[in-house]
């Protein structure tokens, strides 16, 4: 009797521990698209996407594309963002379960490419004579001489600022050519008040990216390390500003679960280095009457000796499943989505396209609610990827996030943590 109970208990234990870990691993095979049409007939392309209700530009692009190409139908498969990468892997493993590959975490592109799941786009691009210079991060998706993916959407860091705080402190607005040192000094001048009335000159969000990205901005190093000593000056800057009270304290932000948007939208922060996606958030909030901050955008400050307009960001690409039966049609869609029309659709929904020319930035800047001078501020000379296209990026990123907090709460000296990061990075990358 007791033995039996023991067995039951043992089985119960197994369940709870492993079931969750495993279920995600054995997702079921996708249903094949109903339409397997012959040449000349109507073709249906399967296009997995995430959270389509929040990313309305996808629907806009598909509608435009289908109107122009009546013989091609795009079948969007909507997946929750958190499950997306898993689902995509499963679909690619299934062979021709999907035609267009939308890589959410772009740093996993090489994993797919290594398995031969992504079509080399070089010949398609050459055939159509596409000017690839206009695409942000185009070369980052060229792996071993194969163009495995094509840049679609892009986001990069800029400096947001609150004009009213600058006016009140009698400080000139940030220029588009500022170093991080100059930014730090500016923050000191902008900090004022005490307690509930305190205004902070700067704000560094709790993501390690909001310190480490400035260290990789010169393009000489990446977060893969394994020597992380190049990050030291930026950690010193962050701690110095934290001690001086010119930025909010990391522990307060972390334990209070404070999101970067609210302090800025409440007017308690003068400058905020943040991604271009934040513009959309500002416009939406302002339209809803939830913020009346008089904001502006400047180019992200840069390290000493680096050209103005260098920034850090990430790019989400589109690719073709190498096993697709309709590669030509899939390419037609990618060409459309990443081209002028597709990019305009992204801009219309407040997203930054990877395709950029003079008109693109002007169009974004002309959007209602965008501050004056945005077009100039959004110009970039170089965008470094915050997470390099590498299969170990995600794991390294997690490790850096753990170690980052130890520096910011001052549990350990910077040097010790940087060494520890290096050791763990070597271990992860098997070096």
């Amino acid at each position: 009797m007791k033995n039996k109970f023991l067995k039951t208990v043992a089985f119960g234990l197994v369940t709870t521990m492993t079931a969750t870990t495993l279920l995600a691993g054995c997702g079921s095979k996708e249903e094949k698209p109903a339409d397997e049409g012959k040449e000349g007939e109507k073709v249906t392309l399967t296009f997995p996407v995430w959270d389509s209700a929040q990313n309305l530009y996808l629907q806009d692009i598909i509608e435009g594309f289908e109107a122009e190409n009546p013989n091609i139908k795009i079948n969007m498969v909507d997946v929750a963002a958190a499950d997306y990468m898993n689902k995509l892997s499963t679909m690619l493993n299934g062979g021709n379960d999907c035609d267009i590959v939308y890589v959410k975490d772009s740093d996993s592109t090489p994993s797919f490419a290594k398995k031969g799941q992504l079509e080399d786009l070089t010949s398609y691009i050459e055939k159509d004579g596409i000017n690839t210079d206009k695409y942000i991060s185009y070369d980052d998706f060229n792996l071993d001489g194969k163009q495995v993916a094509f840049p679609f959407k892009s986001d990069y860091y800029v400096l947001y600022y609150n004009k009213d705080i600058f006016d009140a402190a009698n400080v000139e607005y940030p220029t588009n050519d500022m170093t991080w040192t100059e930014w730090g000094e500016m923050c000191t001048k902008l900090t004022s008040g005490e307690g509930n009335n305190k205004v902070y000159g700067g704000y560094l969000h709790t993501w390690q990216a909001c310190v480490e990205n400035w260290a990789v901005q010169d393009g000489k190093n990446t977060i893969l390390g394994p020597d992380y000593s190049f990050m030291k000056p930026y950690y010193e800057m962050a701690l110095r500003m934290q001690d001086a009270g010119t930025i909010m304290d990391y522990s307060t932000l972390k334990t209070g679960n404070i999101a970067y948007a609210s302090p800025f939208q409440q007017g308690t922060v003068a400058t905020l280095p943040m991604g271009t996606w934040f513009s959309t958030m500002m416009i939406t909030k302002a339209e809803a009457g939830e913020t009346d901050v008089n904001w502006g955008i400047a180019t992200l400050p840069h390290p000493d000796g680096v050209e103005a307009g260098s920034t850090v960001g990430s790019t989400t690409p589109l690719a073709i499943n190498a096993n697709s039966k309709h590669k030509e049609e899939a390419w037609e869609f990618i060409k459309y989505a990443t081209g002028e029309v597709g990019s305009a659709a992204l801009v219309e929904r407040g997203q930054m396209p990877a395709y950029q020319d003079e008109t693109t930035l002007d169009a974004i800047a002309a959007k209602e609610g965008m501050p004056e001078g945005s077009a100039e501020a959004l110009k970039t000379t170089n965008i470094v990827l915050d997470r390099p296209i590498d299969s170990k990026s995600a794991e390294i990123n997690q490790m850096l996030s753990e170690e980052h907090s130890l520096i910011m709460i001052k549990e350990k000296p910077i040097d010790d943590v940087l060494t520890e990061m290096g050791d763990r990075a070597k271990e992860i990358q098997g070096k």
Partner: protein
Amino acid sequence: MEKKAKKQKGVSLTLRQNLVGYSFILPNFIGFFVFIFIPVMFSLALSFSHWDGFTEIEFAGIQNFVDIFKDSVFRDSIWQTAYFTIFTVLFSVIASLGLALLLNQKIKARGFFRSALFFPYVASVVAVSVVFNAMLQPEYGPLNEFLKFIGISNPPGWLASTTWVIPGLIIVNVWRNMGYFMIIYLAGLQGIDQSLYEAAELDGANGWTRFWKITWPLLSPSTFFVVMMLVINSFKVFDLVWLMTNGGPGTSSTMISQYIYNQAFISWDYGKSSAAAMILFLIVALLTAFQFKAEKKIVNY
């Protein structure tokens, strides 16, 4: 002929009865088989393989186990989980038994207090995390305000400190658990025959002696259940830690379950993740088996 038919009918009747019996347990059994047994066996197989979720599965021998034991984060996670478990169990037993003894008295609004104390157990862990994150805030959190008020000038940093993060989590976990286990102790208390106390009183035993000689021994089956449930639950703790600290600062509150999660869903290393899951299973199974062995000595009736 006649006889044979009768016999056949008899056999098929037993069989039919059996089939009816099996059909009753079938839904449960299918569920168990598909959602528990197969995944567990798959996980066991994976713990001896390399797999990132989409390339081919390769046999790895014991490589994953070697790797995770070399990983200081995993070794730390074992100690951290053990530390968390020991004190959660200890304080939960003290708190829930104390509350049960108190609410077993004939006091005013007893029903209200019982429900109020049970409430944390049914509250959403997300809400609990949000509230306690604020309560334990180092600068302006109510707990540290109180500590400062009673004269502690340098109160702990709680979730923003590698030293205090686990004690902080223990406080929250004990608070969440105590209501449920209080109910179990209350049931145990009500099962104790009042005449024993009357007899003891006649013999001149004071309150303390009555507790140690009657209440505590007779509650041992409840204590056994409470401790076992707490050990199992604490070893598996995930949601609370994930929501409150996400294993930080650094990896100072990373528990085994979160290590499993991180390996599977951040590093996409299902092999290492499954190996860690097997070790967690082994630890919990051994502890549970040990408790059952010890039951005879601990439980008094």
